[in-house]
């Protein structure tokens, strides 16, 4: 891959004020994201994963440092100047309950991105067509478009969230703990779906998770965060097989494994 990076992140810092204390949520983070790359971001709770990806989606402003999307900086831009980013990047969130407006139909939820001002040209019929298309893609029955989120199971809701993200045909999909709230039994389905979609449309994926085994499954590169700092960044297999950082090693060792050899 010789293409230019789709994201260039330089010396990114984010401070939160908490009372009179300051919390460094993201601490001098640097990395590039190539088109088509599938990057996993792992780390414990509070390590700054969400903060980082929210800044990448221009939902939160960095304290210092720079983020360039397709060569132009997105830091300090007004909403109107972010059209390119808004068209190209979509997010899927952790909790399928809170990421879907309970008072909108599934159809309205999925087509909402297309009704934003960054997609002016799209007509109603275009939207309806696209709705059927994405719902089918994620394995939902287009007939269910007039139902409300609470009428769906957790796994299905997450599919709705994914359909919404796919509707505007983004180049980058950011999934912030997209499977963490799901039951093991459903998780596999959603993971498979994401894997398939990413492969099919050549999406660039940023996949946030605290679960290393999950990341290994969908990503080709991993970035390990700890207290806002990058402690390890490399191809998935390399990180898994030969972790360089002691923290990564500890993280890997802690993953519970199925023990089939029990002697009663």
């Amino acid at each position: 891959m010789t293409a230019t990076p789709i994201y260039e992140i330089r010396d990114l810092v984010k401070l939160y004020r908490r009372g009179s204390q300051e919390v460094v949520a993201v601490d001098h983070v640097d990395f590039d994201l190539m088109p088509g790359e599938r990057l996993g971001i792992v780390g414990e709770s509070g390590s700054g994963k969400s903060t980082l990806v929210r800044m990448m989606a221009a939902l939160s402003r960095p304290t210092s440092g720079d983020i360039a999307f397709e060569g132009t900086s997105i830091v300090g831009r007004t909403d109107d100047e972010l059209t390119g980013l808004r068209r190209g990047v979509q997010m899927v969130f952790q909790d399928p309950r809170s990421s879907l407006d309970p008072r909108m139909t599934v159809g309205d939820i999925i087509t909402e991105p297309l009704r934003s001002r960054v997609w002016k040209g799209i007509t109603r019929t275009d939207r309806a067509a696209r709705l059927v298309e994405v719902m089918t893609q994620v394995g939902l029955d287009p007939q269910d478009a007039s139902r409300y989120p609470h009428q769906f199971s957790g796994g299905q809701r997450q599919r709705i969230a994914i359909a919404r993200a796919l509707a505007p045909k983004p180049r980058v999909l950011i999934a912030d703990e997209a499977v963490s709230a799901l039951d093991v039994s459903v998780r596999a389905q959603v993971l498979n779906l994401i894997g398939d979609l990413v492969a099919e449309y050549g999406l660039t994926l940023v996949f946030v998770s605290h679960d290393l085994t999950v990341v290994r499954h969908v990503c080709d590169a991993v970035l390990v965060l700890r207290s806002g700092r990058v402690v390890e960044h490399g191809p998935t297999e390399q990180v898994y097989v030969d972790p360089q950082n002691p923290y990564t090693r500890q993280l890997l060792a802690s993953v519970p494994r199925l023990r089939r050899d029990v002697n009663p």
Partner: protein
Amino acid sequence: MSLAALGRRLLSFAVSLLCASAVVFGLLNLLPGDVAGVILGPNATPESIEAMRTRLGLDRPVWLRYLDWLGGLLTGDFGTSALSGDPVAGVIGSRLAVTTWLVVLGMFLALLIALPVGMFAAMRRQRVDGLAASGLSQLGMAVPVFVVGLALSLIVGVKLRWLPANGYVPLTDSPGQWLAHLVLPCLTLGLVQGAVLVRYVRSAFIEVLQTEYFRTARAIGWRRWPAMLRHGLRNASLQIVTVLGLQMATLFVGAIVVESVFALPGLGLYLLQVVANRDLPVVQSIVMVLVALVLVINLLVDLAYTFIDPRLRGDATAASEADE
């Protein structure tokens, strides 16, 4: 709370007070009719009224009078009554004492009623008796204060003659009489306010009952009521204190009705009288005192909160994002 946070809170309190004083003064100086006419009575001539207004300084520009008044307030000088010519501060002081007794004792009674009933209603919210308790409180909330007051005054005071139907005797004159005169008004306030409180106490305790830590307390072997008292009360009191603060504040004003039912010489009744007389220096000051009381109580509630809730004591207060 850190010193800085306390400072910020106090500063915002001061700003609120200042704004409130402007509102009070502005509103009151829009009133038609003035005290000059009241003093001079039905037979006054326009000229004599003009002369009286000049004497009272009512012809000076509004902002100048505002600044004077504000300056007076800051130095503890509430001005003098246009009608009687004596200092407002003294009158308000003695009146406030009556109202404060009424409100504080009333609130105490309300708590005395609401805590057990509310806890009971929360504990047995699925049972008939628990529902009956909260239903009763709903009913209590639906009856106007003055109806309760009139009924008590009529039955206990006039028909049974167990207690004075109304009126007031200062504590210094006769403590026994003082108490006898306060029982019915306080009971009125306590019943009505208690009914409102029951609702909050109930919901606060229901919330506690559903918490994991209450379940933990039960799991280690506490029985229901002891668990409630030991772990529920303090946590529920976080919510109850807020409500109490809000109610305490409105009670000072709500006392107006009770004071007029029972002819208690409190601040509220006095306010009605001086408003009717357009004795503006007094009206302004009373309203300001009432408003300041509300604000002070809000402040105290905030402080009480940090006292009860250890989570607010450290500096780990609610996170705030500066840049969004």
